[in-house]
């Protein structure tokens, strides 16, 4: 007989798509922004990035061994690399090595494998790690530096970078505030947003012009994933084009953030930052295309994805504007993650031939 069937029913044709390919596409989409930012922040950032991704992969392997699952087959799906990569992109680039390792511990064993591994976790592992680190080590996690591009004066050599990353000795005078952080601090001192926004450009270490272009290109302090929204957006568009993600979550999230920012800014520009500032600063774009769109922790229905994107956008704006933290994307994503099962339940599509409630449609003429 010909080919003993593994599964007796069809179909006998399948898409070429695999989980592995999907993860690879996401990593590919992240690459330009990551390379550019590693260049901007120099050797310490490169070391931290390597440590974080490495720690995630090691943690994943360890968890798989403990759970008795096949290691190499599962590791090759690339999900641990992606988690580490995304986490590294939200850390201060010159943070010490143990931040990356600790983050990996939060992300992989705690946020992923405690729930049952790939596909089972309720919360986005990278965001769980980021929030846990932020709450536990607020000082280290907000020690941002201004860009020190590789091979320029002031950029640490590999040796100096070793001391920064592994001995935790950040040289004096290089820390700087992120745009969101600066505006927030100034506002708390009574300086109107409209002024601090202008002031921000002059005060930042590299004294670039205070325009939005900076935010888009990346010459400003922040994490790897916060700066250069432009390249990240490019990666996001790539994912849309390759149909790895759909537009629902990113468009709703960015749209909501922009509309909220614009509306309130029009209402009181001294207290509320404008819409463009909101979407180009912090990790709004990274969050919209790469984090909120995480398959596992976002709704499976398209209507649910719209609700989810709206929620993340709204909460990000609320937290940035009213809460103690300057950046709220990670919190917003986690909050909406917790609602995902409920959203899925209430946004199921209408079944063919049935009403929303699941009753058969009436036959016309017999109503």
């Amino acid at each position: 007989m010909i080919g003993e069937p593994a599964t007796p029913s069809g179909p006998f044709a399948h898409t070429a798509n695999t989980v592995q390919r999907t993860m690879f596409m996401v990593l590919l989409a992240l690459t330009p922004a990551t390379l550019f930012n590693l260049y901007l922040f120099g050797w310490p950032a490169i070391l931290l990035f390597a440590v974080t991704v490495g720690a995630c992969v090691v943690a994943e392997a360890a968890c798989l061994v403990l759970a008795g699952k096949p290691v190499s087959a599962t590791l090759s799906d690339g999900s641990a690399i992606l988690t580490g990569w995304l986490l590294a992109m939200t850390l201060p680039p010159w943070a010490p090595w143990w931040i990356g390792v600790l983050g990996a511990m939060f992300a992989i064993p705690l946020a992923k494998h405690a729930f049952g591994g790939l596909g089972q976790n309720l919360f986005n592992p990278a965001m769980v790690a980021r929030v846990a680190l932020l709450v536990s080590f607020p000082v280290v996690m907000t020690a941002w530096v201004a860009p020190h591009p590789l091979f320029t004066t002031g950029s640490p050599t590999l040796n100096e970078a070793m001391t920064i990353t592994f001995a935790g000795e950040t040289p004096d005078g290089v820390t700087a505030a992120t745009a969101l952080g600066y505006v927030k601090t100034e506002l708390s001192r009574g300086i109107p947003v409209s002024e601090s926004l202008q002031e921000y450009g002059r005060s930042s270490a590299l004294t670039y012009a205070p325009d939005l272009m900076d935010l888009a290109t990346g010459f400003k302090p922040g994490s790897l994933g916060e700066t250069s929204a432009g390249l990240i957006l490019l990666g996001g568009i790539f994912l849309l084009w390759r149909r790895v993600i759909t537009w629902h979550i990113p468009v709703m999230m960015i749209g909501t953030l922009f509309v909220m920012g614009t509306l309130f800014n029009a209402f009181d520009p001294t207290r509320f930052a404008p819409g463009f500032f909101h979407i180009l600063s912090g990790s709004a774009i990274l969050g919209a295309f790469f984090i909120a769109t995480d398959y596992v922790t976002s709704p499976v229905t398209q209507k649910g994805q719209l609700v989810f994107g709206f929620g993340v956008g709204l909460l990000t704006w609320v937290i940035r504007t009213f809460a103690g933290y300057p950046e709220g994307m990670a919190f917003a994503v986690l909050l909406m993650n917790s609602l995902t099962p409920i959203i899925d339940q209430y946004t199921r599509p209408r079944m063919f031939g049935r009403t929303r409630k699941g009753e058969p449609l009436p036959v016309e003429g017999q109503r």
Partner: protein
Amino acid sequence: MKLFPIRGGIHPQYRKELTGDCAIEALPLPNRLYIPLQQHIGVPAEVLVSEGDLVSKGQVIARRQGPVSVNQHAPTSGRVAAVTEIPAPHPSGLPQPTIVIEPDGADTWGTLAEPITDPFAVDAQTIEARVAECGIVGMGGAGFPSAVKLNLGIRHRIETLLINGAECEPYLTCDDRVMREHADEVIDGARIMAHALHAPKIVVAIEENKPQALAIMTAAAQAHTNMEVVAVPAKYPMGSERHLTLAITGRETPARKLTADLGVVVHNVATARAVHHAVRHGRPLVARVVTVSGQAMRTPKNVEAPIGATVSDLIAFCGGFAQRPERLVQGGPMMGALLPGTDVPVVKSTSGILALTAEEINDRPADPCVRCGSCVAICACGLVPVEIAAHVRHDDLEGAARLGLMDCVSCGSCSWVCPSHIPLVHYFNYAKGALNAQERERRKSERTKTLVEARAARVERIAAQRAANLARKPKAAVGAEEVGA
């Protein structure tokens, strides 16, 4: 014509180019033909011949039993070699009663039913009876007796006869070729069916990836004002009756109802051609066009094969295998079934025989579900396959049913699209089978319960009556009453 969108759907690799330009070739008569008594949904036919009988082409060799059953005819002239059991063309490969015919090579027709020269002058019953007599079934794959579907004109007011030339399954080009080579026969058959159904309008729906068929059919339909040939988007599962009806009429068939409840009856193009042969020439359904394809086949072809030719006959006619096939499938790759071997016969609903390589099937071990939502986005029935599968896996069949398991048309799109290659449809088919079995069990026990209750009620009634009699009658009469009882 304005078309209406259908939800979801996929664009698999069609690979129709393997056979799209292969004109229909007749299969040389094999040495033996195997005609199973049951090649359709419903009751098997009753054998009319016995070993050694001589039969002529088109002679009834097995008679249908009731309406959901079809006649079988001798596909050629020859001798009945045996009436025996051979494996069925079904994944189970279970043996089933089959008539074996040894052709004499002359291929002479017997006396056929009188041709109906003006079908539009006769009534619906005459046409229906002819279609039933000629053993015609739905040739798109389901194999439902066509006469039953022509009957729908009695209880429903039919507005549109929809001729399904979508052929949305990858690989298959048999309907495409039939339309390109026999457009007039298809159109005539369609008009006869519309007459039987009292349907004022005929729409022929063809997927837009068949431009030649569209052009030829449009030209052939020109002469008939009540007929329209429509290009529908190439999107799987466009050929599903309910979805095609929605695309053409914009109306959604309510759950548990038929398209006929909306005034639409759907028939396949090859069925229409068979109706033409039956009505105009009195010829029963004894052959069909089969697409023999797949990259493991040496020369893929469209073959007109007598019913009962074996799969190995067709494979040999197509030059054998170019390489060892990973899977041998009958029908299309999406909804077709695994063939248990090459000894099984071609039946009336066999639209394709595919020898597929591992690379074409592209199956791999399942990964965990990553909740990507693709299956939800593409399900043309608006279901949430990932959730239904989760219920099935936890053996919660009621939960799965609440989420619409029984509304699933098993089109296979969700399994096709899943990046984790989870065999979703396999779960659903398993669960549907289990639920149907439960339902049968429930009905049976309910029937038993009603019987038991009825008996109990009767016993009680008799006892009560007796008590009443006892109370009324004088004591002396009791003994006599008891004897009489």
